[in-house]
C-alpha cells in the first residue's frame, strides 16, 4: 500500500499500462511538454513522448525492439472531434488509445465521434471490430470556470448503449478502474473531477490490481437511509453522513463507481435494508443520471420504500461565474442533509 493523490493514481495507472503493453497510446491537448492542464500527464512526455514532427521519421528498428516505447504521447491540435476520431480509428486496428479531454466539457464537440462512431462499431460491424478506447478527463465544476467549462457529461454517456461509463471517487478505485478501462475491448468513458485530483488515499501497488466494472461499493455502513452517489459526490455524502450521525441518523453511503454497467443489486440491497434513499449528483438535477437511479429504485424496491426516493442534483442553470453563485449550484453536504430531512 502507498498513499497517493487521485491525480498520481490516474497517472500510475497510465504508466503501468503503457509499460505493460506497447499498444497503449495517449493523445490529447497539451498533455506533452505542458504536462496537461491538471498535470495528470506530468512525466509521460519525457518517458514515451515524441514531437509531432518526428512522425516524419518511421520508427527505427531499435524503437520497435524497444516495443515502440517512443511516439506514444502525442499532443494534438485543439480539435476534439478529430482527436477522438483518430483514436477510434487506431483502436479499430487493435491499438489501445487513451484520449485525455482537457475537460469533459469539451467532449461535447466530439459526441458524434463518441456516440455515432466509437460506441457503435462493434454492433454495426456485427462483432467484426472492437474499439478499445478510453476517454478520460475531469468532469463537473472546478473553480469559477463559468457556463461553458463546468459540464457533467457522465449522465449523457451512461445513456448510450455500446459505451461503458465509470466515475470513481477514491484514488485506489481510480487506479484499478482506469487499468480495467485500458484493458477493456470496448469504449470506456472515465470521468474524473477537478475537486478530486489533490485528494489522497491508500493505493495497492500490485500492478495487476484491477477493479471490474459494474460493482458499486458501500463505503459507509448505516441502517436508517442510503445516500447514493459517485465521483466527488461520494465525499459529499460521507460528510453529510457525519452531520446526520450527530443528529442520530445513521446513513449508509453507496459509491456507485460504475454507471454503465450499473450495479443495481448493491444499490437495492442497501435500500432494502434502510428503506430510504437519496440519490446525489452534481449534474443538472432535471434529466441527470440520478433520475435513472431513482426511477429504478422506485420500480424495483417499491414495497421496500418507507419514503419517496429523494434526489439532490445541481441547480438547473448554466454554471455562473461569481463564486457565491457557483457554490450555490453545486450540491454540498448541507443540501444532502436538507433532502434527508424532507424525506420525513
Amino acid at each position, binding site marked *: 500500500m502507498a498513499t497517493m493523490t487521485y491525480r498520481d493514481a490516474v497517472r500510475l495507472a497510465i504508466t503501468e499500462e503503457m509499460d505493460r503493453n506497447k499498444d497503449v*497510446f495517449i493523445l490529447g491537448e497539451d498533455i506533452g511538454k505542458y504536462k496537461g492542464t491538471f498535470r495528470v500527464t506530468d512525466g509521460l512526455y519525457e518517458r514515451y513522448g515524441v514531437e*509531432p514532427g518526428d*512522425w*516524419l521519421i*518511421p*520508427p527505427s528498428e531499435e*524503437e*520497435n525492439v524497444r516495443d*515502440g516505447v517512443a*511516439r*506514444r504521447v*502525442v499532443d*494534438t*491540435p485543439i*480539435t476534439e*472531434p*478529430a*482527436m*477522438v*476520431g*483518430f*483514436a*477510434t*480509428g*487506431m*483502436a*479499430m*486496428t*487493435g*491499438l489501445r488509445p487513451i484520449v485525455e479531454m482537457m475537460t469533459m466539457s469539451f467532449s461535447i464537440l466530439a459526441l*458524434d*465521434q463518441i456516440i*455515432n*462512431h466509437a460506441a457503435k462499431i*462493434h*454492433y*454495426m*460491424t*456485427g*462483432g*467484426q*471490430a*472492437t474499439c478499445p478506447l478510453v476517454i478520460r478527463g475531469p468532469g463537473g465544476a472546478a473553480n469559477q470556470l463559468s457556463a461553458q467549462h463546468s459540464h457533467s457529461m457522465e449522465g449523457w454517456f451512461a445513456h448510450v*448503449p*455500446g459505451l*461503458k461509463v465509470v466515475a470513481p471517487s477514491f484514488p485506489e478505485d481510480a487506479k484499478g478502474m482506469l487499468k480495467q478501462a485500458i484493458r*477493456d*475491448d*470496448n469504449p470506456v468513458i472515465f470521468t474524473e473531477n477537478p475537486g478530486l485530483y489533490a485528494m489522497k488515499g491508500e493505493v495497492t501497488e500490485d500492478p495487476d490490481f484491477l477493479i471490474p466494472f*459494474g460493482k458499486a461499493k458501500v463505503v459507509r455502513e448505516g441502517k436508517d437511509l442510503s445516500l447514493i452517489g459517485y465521483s466527488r459526490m461520494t465525499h459529499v455524502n460521507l460528510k453529510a453522513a457525519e452531520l446526520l450521525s450527530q443528529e442520530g441518523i445513521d446513513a449508509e453511503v453507496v459509491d456507485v463507481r460504475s454507471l454503465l*454497467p450499473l450495479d443495481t443489486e448493491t444499490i437495492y440491497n442497501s435500500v432494502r435494508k434502510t428503506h430510504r434513499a437519496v440519490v446525489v449528483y452534481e449534474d443538472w438535477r432535471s434529466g441527470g443520471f440520478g433520475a435513472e437511479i431513482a426511477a429504478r429504485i422506485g420500480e424495483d424496491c417499491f414495497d421496500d420504500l418507507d419514503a419517496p426516493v429523494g434526489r439532490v442534483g445541481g441547480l438547473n442553470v448554466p454554471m455562473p461565474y461569481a463564486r457565491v453563485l457557483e457554490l450555490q449550484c453545486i450540491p454540498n453536504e448541507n443540501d444532502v442533509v436538507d433532502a434527508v430531512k424532507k424525506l420525513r
Partner: protein
Amino acid sequence: MPKSAPAKTTYTPSELEHFYRQMVYLRHFEEKCNFCFRQGKAGGYLHVYIGMEPLAIGWLNCIRKDWDYVITAYRDHGHAYVLGTPVHEILAEIMGRKTGTSKGKGGSMHLYDIKRNFFGGWGIVGGHTALGGGLAMAAKYRGEDRVTLCYLGDGASNAGVFFETLNMAGLYKLPIIFIIENNRYAMGTALERHAADPELYKRGYPFDMKHVRVDTMDLLQTMSDAQRIIDDVRGGGGPYLVEAMTYRFSGHGAADHERHLYRDRSEEEQYEKRDPIKLFEEYLDKNKIMTREKMEAIDEEAQNQVEQLYEAVDKEPFPDPQEVYDDVYSDMNPEMGH
C-alpha cells in the same frame, strides 16, 4: 486536369478482361440493389455507385489488398466487392439477412470486412474521415508501410472534422490518401451551391499536403494516377488529397426519384457520353483487346450471376429476434427489455 500523367496501361489482356468483368458485374449488382429497394427487399438508405465504378475498381486494384487500409462513407458496395468480400455476404447484408457481413445489423450503408482491412461503411457525412486518419496513424506508429485510402464525397469535403483531419494528417505526415469523390452533388445540392470554391483539390493547400484534381471516368487513366499517388505515399511522401471528378448517374439514393428537382436530363446526357463502362469498352475495342461480342457475352454472364445471387440470398434467413442484443459489447450484454 493538372499533374495527371498520360493514360498508359501495363496490363495484360487477361487483367484488362478481369477489370472489365468487375466493371460490368458491379453495374449489374448496383442495379439489382435498386431493384431490391423497389421490391421492399432492402430498406433504409441505399446508395449505388453507378457511373463511379473506376473509383473502386481503379484505385482498389492498385493497392496492396489485405494490407492497405480502406474506409469510405455509405456509398460502399463497390469497395467491399473489389476488396474481395463475398458478394453473397454483401447482398445478404443489404437485404438484412443473418448471413450478411454485419449479420443484418448494418445494411447497405454499413458494410465492413475488417479481416480484409475494409473499415466501412459510415453514415455520418464526413465523420469517418477522422477514423481514416487514425488508421494511417496506427500504421505509422507500428512502422508498417500500409497506405490508407479514405474516400469521401464532395458534400463531405465541407465537414469540419474533415479539415481537422487534414490538419492532423499533414502535421503528423501520415501515409493517407483522401479521395474526394466529386460527383457534383450532395444529395440535391449542386457543387456550386455547397462549396465556396468548387475546385475542391485546393483544400489540401493550407495543410502542406499534395493535392490534385483527376478525371476518374476513364478507368485506365484512373489506375495510372492511382498507382503514381499510392507509390508516392507509400514511399514516405506524406499525405495526399485527390479530387476525383466523377458523376452520380442515378439518384442520391434508391429513394431519390426526383432528380429533375435539382438537375436536368441534358446535363445527365452529357455525362452519360463518358459512362466509364462505355469508355473502357471503346478502349478495349479500339485496341483490339476484346471483341464487342465477347463484351456482350460477359455482360450477359454478369447479369445472370447477379440474378442467381439475388435468388440465393433471398432464401437466406433473417436474424433471430434474440440477436438484437448481441455485439453491443464484446464481453457483456446490455440490459434487456423495454
